[in-house]
């Protein structure tokens, strides 16, 4: 289901609970798609605001991912670093419809422009 606003990137059951998958964007920033224990799906640019660690490889707990490089905790909903750390990673609109993951076309392609 590809529309003007949304890109279908695959079935949601390909996304492990408390895990993440990656979505490279040719000529742009790789995106990480996360799924929480509740089944909520989030998308962030796959780069920690601290030292660009791949957030997709971090441990997901509640709706937070802990960066695998230096344990910064990043909110999946806002992209903001939590606690005493400061920084923010762009979020990309994402939703699940009919078991498919749809991602905001404009935002996903923003970095590839």
């Amino acid at each position: 289901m590809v529309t003007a606003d949304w890109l279908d990137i695959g079935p949601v059951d390909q996304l492990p609970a408390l895990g993440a998958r990656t979505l490279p964007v040719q000529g742009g920033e790789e995106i990480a798609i996360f799924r929480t224990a509740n089944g909520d799906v989030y998308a962030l640019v796959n780069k920690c605001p601290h030292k660009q660690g791949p957030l997709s490889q971090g441990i997901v707990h509640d709706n937070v991912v802990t960066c695998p490089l230096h344990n910064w905790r990043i909110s999946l909903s806002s992209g903001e670093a939590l606690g005493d750390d400061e920084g923010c990673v762009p979020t990309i609109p994402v939703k699940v419809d009919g078991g498919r993951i749809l991602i905001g076309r404009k935002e996903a392609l923003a970095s590839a422009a």
Partner: protein
Amino acid sequence: MADTPPQLVVIGNGMAGCRAVEEILARDPKRYQVTIFGAEPRVNYNRIMLSPVLAGEKTYEEIIINDQQWYDDNDIELVSGDPVANIDRSAKTVTSRSGRTINYDKLLIATGSDPFIIPVPGHDLPGVVTFRDLDDVDAMLAAAGLGGNAVVIGGGLLGLEAAHGLALRGMQVTVLHLMPTLMERQLDEAAGWLLKSALEARGQTILTGADTAEIVGDGKVQAVRLKDGTEIPADIVVMAVGIRPSTGLAKEAGLAIGRGIQVDDHMVTSDENILAVGECVEHDGNVYGLVAPLWDMCRSLADGLVAEPNGYRGSVTSTKLKVSGIDVFSAGDFSGGEGCEDIVLRDATRGVYKRVIVKEDKIVGAVLYGDTADGNWYFDLLKKGEDISEIRDALIFGQAFASGGGASLNPIEAVAALSDDAEICGCNGVSKGQVMACIGNGADTLDAVRSTCKASASCGSCTGLVENLLQLAMGDDYSGERTVQPMCKCTTFTHEDVRAAILEKELKEIPQLMQELSWSTPDGCASCRPALNYYLLCAWPEEHKEDPQSRFVNERMHANIQKDGTYSVVPRMFGGITTPNELRAIADAADKYEARTVKVTGGQRIDLFGIKKEDLPAIWADLNAAGMVSGHAYGKALRTVKTCVGSEWCRFGTQDSTGLGVKLEHMTWGSWMPHKFKIAVSGCPRNCAEATIKDFGVICVDSGYELLVGGNGGIHLRGTELLCKVETEEQAMEYCAAFIQLYREEARYLDRTAPWIERVGLDYVKSKVVEDDVGRKALQRRFLHSQRILQKDPWAERAAGSESHLHQHIAEIRPFAVVGAA
């Protein structure tokens, strides 16, 4: 003709259609001449009571809402068993399947929803049923009468109710659920896990993460086959994976359709003479599958038609259910989010889990399991958006406690008001008077109270109360700080408490542990989850449930993540010995996968840097093919056994240090530990293998082997201490296994051997490993047992395709072209 009221035609004789008519009649019984079309050949009954009918708790007669008398009394014509097949908007008529056409002035569509059928092969076989109406229930009852196996596809509410009913009717029931936890839309992971355990205890088989591939049968259902190849015998298959708004008629009539039939605040569709209500509509972007919003819609609809307009504003939904006799409740948004805080109460003894989600001093969601008495109270606070900051401390204990008069709102005053014989610790039966006496006798910390009167020493859920009593008794003298730190902020228990509980309560998976030990967060944190996963693995090597999502990235990927997000790969070389063939394979792999750096490590291995995560399974397959396995250079595990050349070549060598090193590494590789673990064997006291800065070192001497422990070459350089001296290689191996197992069983996660030995003392280690012959052999036996089960090459498993999703992108975006890849 002026006296003839306008015609209201209702499509759908279900709960929404009839309720809407009732609401209209209540406002003005003479406003419309009503005709209702129903697809089923019966009067209006309560669809949500089908489960009790299936379970044998109710009869059809008992769930009728409106009998024929109601239709007659209100002069309503019921056309049952003859669904509407077509709507003609220009002529303002509807035509039924049997060809009957009648006019309408207002048309109300209340077609509800259709069960979703997964289009797998065999879905149309006889014996595959849905769970939507009385005919479905009759089909299930007929099947249950013959006994045998039932498979229910779908672990949502409907599926679980079908499973419960069929189980009560004597069938062997298996529930297949695609998602990792049951009822994931209503329950969070912790509550879903509790539900699964409870249903399993009642004899149902619950398979989560189960993806149906095919329904197998020759002319009739015989089995269900999953994508992983499992086949489950089935005499009946109930498809209960979900429902979708029934919009076919409206769509053909050209009405605006989104996910459902789109309506405004008075349930009017894109045609002003056609209304729609119930599960088939979409209002403000939302569709509803529960009964409460439906009642709200019917009220707004009737208001719009006959009385003062009072539009529908959407519904906040709550779910309070009994699933197979277990009370569950959920309301609002329990997914957490920015600024959300969880208040969690777990009572393992009573099987209770409560979680209230608070944002900016207001309740935004709640999940209750086992005790739902306060569900409506939380839901009420949520709907009204009440500020709960005043009652926050007591909120989770429920309305009775939180609203128990002004004085009790202060937790210290609340405990002060308790009588001396009030029970504080339910697990150990300790009263307030006993706790206060114990504090009076000098127990001035939580740990001291726990060790003397045992209050809060079991499940820990009364820890807060005990701390309040400490504060009450000691005032400002109570530091509030525990002498022993808890594992992390998710719990009040220490590492040692948790490990003891794992053994004592036979805890084997993380959600179970979090429930039993009253974890204060729904799914832990990045600090406690890896520790818990290790503790469970160590305690129950055979039975524990491994959780890959609780592993640090390196252990999940079986390679070391580097600062640019690529990985380094280190194949194992037992004892630091390699061969020309292995070196050729490593060189080929370095070329093929474009390793940017090839480095010889301090542990006598070769490290290939800059490997992409997508290439990992392929490079492992290549290295496996040359006979090499994972070097675990990434793990909290046995890393390397470093050796010198020893008596085989060296003129100073006293024993075969290389041979012993190879044997030690074959025994210990692949064992998970609290932290990384390094071994070295030197062939003489010149110590070329640097055995004196390893976790376990061996220095060979003429008369035998000196065994050294607790060395560390890291930030704090620490030389080993002598554990003992032994005479044979066999003894060296036995002591090594025993020492490792003691460390595995007793050190805290992320403690190297050096700080662990400094904490417990070398004498303690000697008493266990050297002086206690029986104990040493038992430790060795437990280590070798664990190795028999867990000593596996993860690279071979991954190269064969296991967990392949970890290494592949879910899809790829190229501007102007979209390529989806599963």
